[in-house]
């Protein structure tokens, strides 16, 4: 049976190579990884943005650059035009001997308060050199935002793997090849599994490529491997449910939208919601996958934790599969 699955996969691979699909699968995780590498440094450094007049008070500009992103403009009018734009930037402008803060009027209070404090620090001549504080850091270079983005993309890639499986199956259904398989020595299950290997390969390769390129090289790779396999279970689940229960691509495409909802909900729940809300998301297998990957990427995961999460994903996926089994069986016919 395994040989047959392999032959079907090789045939699929040949077809897909002609379509550049295999190339896509290889390239997409790399694009995402480089995208994350490009994005995170600038997002991580989000202090406030200030607008000052060029040459009016060089000392002030130099001082404020230590604490905020500073842009300089020729005159008050230019600053007013800049502040009036859609992003948040606060002007600091001279008024006689004093300075005043110029805002657009729609900024959140914290942004304006931050600008007021920085201006006060400058006026009170608060200097870093006179600091009564020292900073000790743990030498971690990967910001939480990067970890979050990598985790989200790992989840998205396993969903994408699932979607590939689903579309592959739906297309075969539309072409009526699944029925034709009846006449061949290959069983339908073998055929479907063979068609799924492309989608299984994506999360395995994608996760490894993503993690390596984005610089998570010190994580426990054995733990990651266990969780990559867990991701493939999710891909298979998504693929089988979507592929075998939908009769045409339009329904499969529309259903994918519904699929994105629990995925998005899980990310929001873990990243934003407080502990008391978490219990409402326990039933979603993606919840445990995201949590597990988060622990692995943070290097805080213990083996018992990883095994527990894996078992939960397996059991939940099993329950969903068992519930939908009659429909899936029907879809195979």
């Amino acid at each position: 049976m395994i040989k047959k699955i392999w032959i079907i996969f090789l045939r699929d691979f040949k077809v897909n190579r002609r379509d550049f699909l295999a190339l896509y699968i290889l390239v997409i995780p790399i694009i995402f990884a480089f995208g994350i590498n490009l994005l995170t440094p600038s997002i991580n450094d989000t202090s406030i943005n200030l607008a000052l007049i060029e040459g009016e008070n060089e000392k002030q500009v130099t001082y404020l650059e230590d604490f905020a992103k500073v842009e300089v403009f020729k005159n008050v009018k230019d600053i007013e035009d800049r502040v009036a734009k859609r992003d948040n930037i606060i002007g600091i402008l001279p008024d006689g001997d004093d300075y005043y803060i110029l805002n657009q009027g729609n900024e959140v209070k914290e942004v304006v308060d931050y600008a007021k404090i920085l201006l006060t620090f400058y006026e009170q001549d608060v200097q870093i050199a006179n600091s009564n504080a020292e900073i000790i850091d743990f030498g971690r270079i990967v910001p939480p935002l990067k970890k979050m983005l990598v985790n989200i993309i790992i989840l998205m890639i396993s969903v994408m793997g699932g979607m590939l499986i689903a579309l592959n199956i739906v297309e075969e259904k539309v072409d009526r090849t699944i029925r034709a398989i009846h006449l061949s020595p290959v069983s339908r299950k073998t055929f479907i599994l063979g068609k799924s290997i492309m989608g299984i390969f994506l999360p395995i390769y994608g996760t490894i490529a993503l993690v390596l390129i984005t610089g998570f090289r010190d994580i426990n790779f054995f733990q990651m491997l266990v969780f990559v396999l867990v991701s493939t279970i999710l891909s298979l689940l998504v693929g089988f449910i979507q592929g075998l229960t939908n009769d045409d691509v339009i329904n499969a495409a529309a259903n994918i939208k519904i699929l994105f909802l629990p995925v998005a909900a899980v990310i929001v729940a873990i990243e934003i919601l407080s502990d008391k809300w978490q219990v409402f998301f326990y039933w979603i297998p993606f919840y445990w996958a995201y949590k597990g990957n988060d622990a692995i990427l943070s290097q805080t995961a213990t083996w018992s934790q990883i095994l527990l999460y894996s078992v939960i994903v397996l059991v939940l996926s099993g329950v969903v599969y068992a519930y939908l089994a009659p429909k899936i069986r029907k879809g195979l016919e």
Partner: protein
Amino acid sequence: MKLWHSFIKELKLSSRGFYFYIEIFMAVLLLVILLFAVPEEFVSKETEYIYFDLPDKLTQGYIEDILEDDIDGKSENVEIKSNGVKISVEYYETDKKKYYIADSKENLIQLTKTKRPLVGAVISLDKSNNNHFEYYLQGYESDRLKNIYLVFHNKDLNLIKEESDNQVVRSLSLDYHMLNDRENVIPSILTFNGSLMGLFIIAAYIFLDKQEGIIKAYAITASSVWQYLMSKVGVILVTSIISCFIIVVPIMGLQPNYPLMLLLLITSGFFVSALGLVIASYYRNLMQAFGAIYVVMIALMLPSIAYFIPSWEPLWIKVIPTYPLIQGFKETILENGDTTYTLLASLGFLVVGVVLFLFANRRFKKTLAA
């Protein structure tokens, strides 16, 4: 007239399929989530771990300051699991922050290492009996943030606060109305629910028709290719308009500028569908087009990061079409929103949409029946 008939026919056909109802179901689901699960104001509290290496009297002073703002006016003894060990700390919670007071420097360092709070701090006295602050950070914090920590306690904080409260703030306009957090989510939901999915769905429609041979059959009718494509775009527009209004009306009531919102929905939907058509014209089936569509969709989602982090807005993100779309939707639901901006954005989507549509039409004329 022929276009109208094709459109009505497409609409009838799609109303028989699942897609139409899935869209409506999704809209209702999103509405329920927004109404019952998304609070009007998000409260995200910063977490600080502190150890006071000070004489009791000074420690007491700090604790009293924290207690003054504490929600219930008292501390709570909690145990935190860190690296398999339970560490006992005193917990205080104010409107803005959560404080965990450790009983030793070692425990503070371990907790800061494993729990990764915003900051861990040891407050002690230096040789001259002045307060001294040791900040434990993870290492990925920006230099600007580190500089703030370094100067924060240099001067008397009460003096800084008093001076800062006296700073003069002038606003360009006092006429701005703010959205609460729940309302603020709507523009990005409208963008993704309505416009972005159009990209995927229109491609799926085209490939489905290709596979079933409908397109070849179309070649012997009196209609032209652009009418066929336009009728597909029409169906996508109708579903996205219905689903968007299902979400917006119950939450925003009469506040939004609905005609303007409708205009933006139509023009942006047209633009996205035309983009979907262009992508679809390069592939033979959805499987092949899938990778390209997926990457374009993810790229189009990026401006929502900038939308939720207003101080991060690099120039390149403003070039992505969903940036003006999200901002345009925001202006339509704001009281006294910027009408000119939305009109300009709509015009932009219309013009680019027409160009893409004409291009797709030319390509499809050559390749549709292939």
